[in-house]
């Protein structure tokens, strides 16, 4: 039995799958207690995600920003930093993207990359503030990024209400079409497009959604982050600092610079997620009463994805599906509460974290034993 548990817990992917299964069982048990039929609820959920091509498209759309904020947190984590600030970086990225998207009038070929890069860069700068504070004054990034999240939120709300930019109360003007990345955005509503889609109902169904090229960008970013971390001297340097900054410093690596750079890159990812959300889905920004949670979900995604780039891709897709499919169970005939989804997400995170916790304790104890005989 002990051996079995050990083997199970030794494989990261095994742990993740195990946690997901447990989460479904836990969610089922709670549904049962609340008087719902779990089988029915899950059928609705699965139907909700995979039933129609349109629904799958929605799941992907929901997953896109989450994959990228997950990458942001994972990247920072791999370099020894805990980026709680993906939320704020996301907000800053979306704000700047909305401004660039509305005020600039450029051909799409220039406008789209400019808005994207502008949003990402703004997020990067936002992240590097926390990096600088850590490198220069030793302020822990968890504290500074939480505070920066709120500054971003209120700054964002200010921008939304700026005269000339606010379309009506609490909502900004839409970005120009030239900055929009929704696929076939005009063509699909044109006469020709309608006729064509009339002949292809499945595609019509899919493109009814604001399906956009953001997901492709997300996949490219996954590959890029993986490449940077594992194949470049930049990744080597940042990981060395993350694992052991004393040894990195000893080896001639500039630790402070690395911390700022690392937070800049993580912030860029957060900002990119925000920019893509505006460019592909929202098209405008609106006053936020509270954090939307894209960045915070990114933390859970990074954890489920074991802080690996490709892990974030799959964890993000899982989250997107749970969120979209979860919304479906609220409507008749089930009328189950959406909170069930949050319970399930919480359970997954819990069970993924627990074995790691156990392993951490085991390692710590072994270390202590090692010290005992040193």
């Amino acid at each position, binding site marked *: 039995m002990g051996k079995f548990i050990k083997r199970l817990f030794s494989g990261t992917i095994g742990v993740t799958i195990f946690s997901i299964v447990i989460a479904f069982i836990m969610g089922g048990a709670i549904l049962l207690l609340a008087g719902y039929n779990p089988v029915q609820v899950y059928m609705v959920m699965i139907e909700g995600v995979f039933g129609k091509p349109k629904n799958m498209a929605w799941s992907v759309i929901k997953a896109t920003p989450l994959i990228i904020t997950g990458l942001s947190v994972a990247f920072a984590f791999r370099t020894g930093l805990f980026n709680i600030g993906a939320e704020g970086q996301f907000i800053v990225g979306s704000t700047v993207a909305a401004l660039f998207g509305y005020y600039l009038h450029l051909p799409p070929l220039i406008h789209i990359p400019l808005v994207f890069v502008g949003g990402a860069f703004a997020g990067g700068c936002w992240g590097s503030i926390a990096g600088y504070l850590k490198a220069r004054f030793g302020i822990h990034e968890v504290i500074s990024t939480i505070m920066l999240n709120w500054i971003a939120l209120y700054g964002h709300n200010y921008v939304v209400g700026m005269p000339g930019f606010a379309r009506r109360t609490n909502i900004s003007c839409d970005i120009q079409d030239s900055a929009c990345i929704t696929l076939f955005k005009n063509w699909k509503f044109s006469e020709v497009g309608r006729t064509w889609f009339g002949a292809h109902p499945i595609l019509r169904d899919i493109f009814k959604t604001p399906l956009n090229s953001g997901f492709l960008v997300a996949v490219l970013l996954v590959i890029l982050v993986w490449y940077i971390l594992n*194949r*470049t*001297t*930049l990744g*080597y*340097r940042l*990981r*060395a600092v993350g*694992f*052991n900054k*004393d*040894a*990195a*410093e*000893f*080896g*001639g*690596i*500039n630790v402070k610079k690395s911390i700022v750079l690392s937070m800049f890159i993580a912030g860029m990812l957060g900002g990119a997620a925000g920019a893509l959300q505006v460019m592909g889905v929202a098209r405008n920004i609106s006053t936020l009463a509270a954090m939307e949670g894209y960045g915070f979900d990114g933390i859970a995604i990074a954890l489920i994805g074991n802080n690996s780039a490709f892990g974030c891709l799959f964890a993000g897709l899982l989250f997107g599906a749970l969120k979209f499919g979860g919304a479906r169970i609220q409507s008749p005939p089930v009328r189950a509460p959406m909170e069930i989804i949050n319970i399930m997400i919480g359970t997954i995170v819990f069970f993924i974290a627990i074995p790691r916790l156990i392993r951490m304790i085991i390692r710590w104890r*072994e270390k202590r*034993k090692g010290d*005992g*005989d*040193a």
Partner: protein
Amino acid sequence: MADVDFTHTTVEMRGIVKKFGSLVANDHIDLTVHKGEVHALLGENGAGKTTLMNVLYGLYQPNSGEIFIKGDKVEVTNPNIAISRGIGMVHQHFMLIPPFTVTQNIILGKETSGPFGVLDIQKAAEEVKAISEQYDLYVDPDQKIEDISVGMQQRVEILKALYRNADILILDEPTAVLTPQEIREFITIIRNLTFQGKTVILITHKLREIKQAADYCTIIRRGKRIDTVEVEKTTEQELASMMVGRSVSFYVKKEARIPGEAILQVKDLVVRDNRNLKAVDGLSLEVRKGEILGLAGVDGNGQKELVEALTGLRRVESGGIFVHERDVTNRDPRDIIDSKVCTIPEDRQKRGLVSDFTVEENIILENFDRKPFSSRGVLNFQAIRDYAGKLIDTFQISPPDGTVRAGTLSGGNQQKVIIAREVSNDPDLLIASQPTRGLDVGAIEYVHSSLVAQRDKDKAVLLVSLELDEIMDLSDRIAVIYEGKIVGIVNAVDADENTLGLMMAGGGQENG
């Protein structure tokens, strides 16, 4: 020793087995200790001696085996049971609270209190004084731990055990932090304790101390008891070969050389420590081509800060550091490495290795952004693998696999990885800071010959070590550091332990 009752066994451990996962730390070990004797446990690092004593003290539970204390079979499931049976343990790293006084530390956990739990510190101080007089362990009960010397702190630890009525004392590597003079005093102390009927179990890997202090010695190798011998009837050489399992050479072969010009010059260096005190205080020295300069001193006299300043990790307040007559004061570590100065750091785990990196990744730590290991920012894994493979071969790093995590290697092999990395940079000056700390005899031999090889290639070597024997064996010249200053430099051939020991303690003044 005539009045010692050898018929009375005070501790008996039978067939102790302790496993950590697949590692068998204690493999059916038997140990018999008689009342009133000093019994040494000898073995290399990781042989299992501390584990065995932790089992006796109740810190670990054995997988099998029996323990008898004073004739009774005892299940020692926690240290309180051991303490109630009269066992006291002094750990290698002292468990004292620096801002507390001697008395406060001694009574901690067994405070004498009056009504309403008011601490009666006066009474406690008297009790402490009485015990310290009884055993000739002089301490000032009102001084703070942070203000007294390491030797004194050790006395406090021993008193702490005696205060709890211990009559069996386990001392774990007690001399590691002491000067030669303090070691001599320490040996007198334990002799004294045994005359008063106490039993001492001494964990050590220092052969000379065993010869001087112990009656019996049990040798443990790789978790197994090899033998128990009467110390008087054996030699250091015999003990060493039992400990290691083969015959070892204590002395490093070294040809005489004439040193060349100075590679490193340090002039009036002042460096502050973390508490902002002057740890290095006007220090000057020179290391020349083709020599090993040994820096001897008791721990905490500025060695650490000096090495950090030399490697660019700590700011220099004033004074200068020159390599090849070029000023490298307050340059960053990269610059200093580029001036052909390489360092084997004091703390392998902290500074030397990124333990979560593979051995390969560690080997390129200082050169990862140079050709052939990378070009235009992209790592070249083939080149890295080839280079690491070559070093693993040359330096006989085990396991011979560059893709394993560095943290999984044994201490000796971790040190080999560091030495391989630093020496293969072909430095003009190699700084070795406590290069053999925590290594076993075999690994020590290896490290020593690497340092001598470096010297024989006409390079300069600065050896910083707390082990006086090591300094005396390897160095061509010996500099003694005390309170951040060099208090004397002698040629190794003229050096004797006594003079050096006096200089290490501050030039022969009374010092505690």
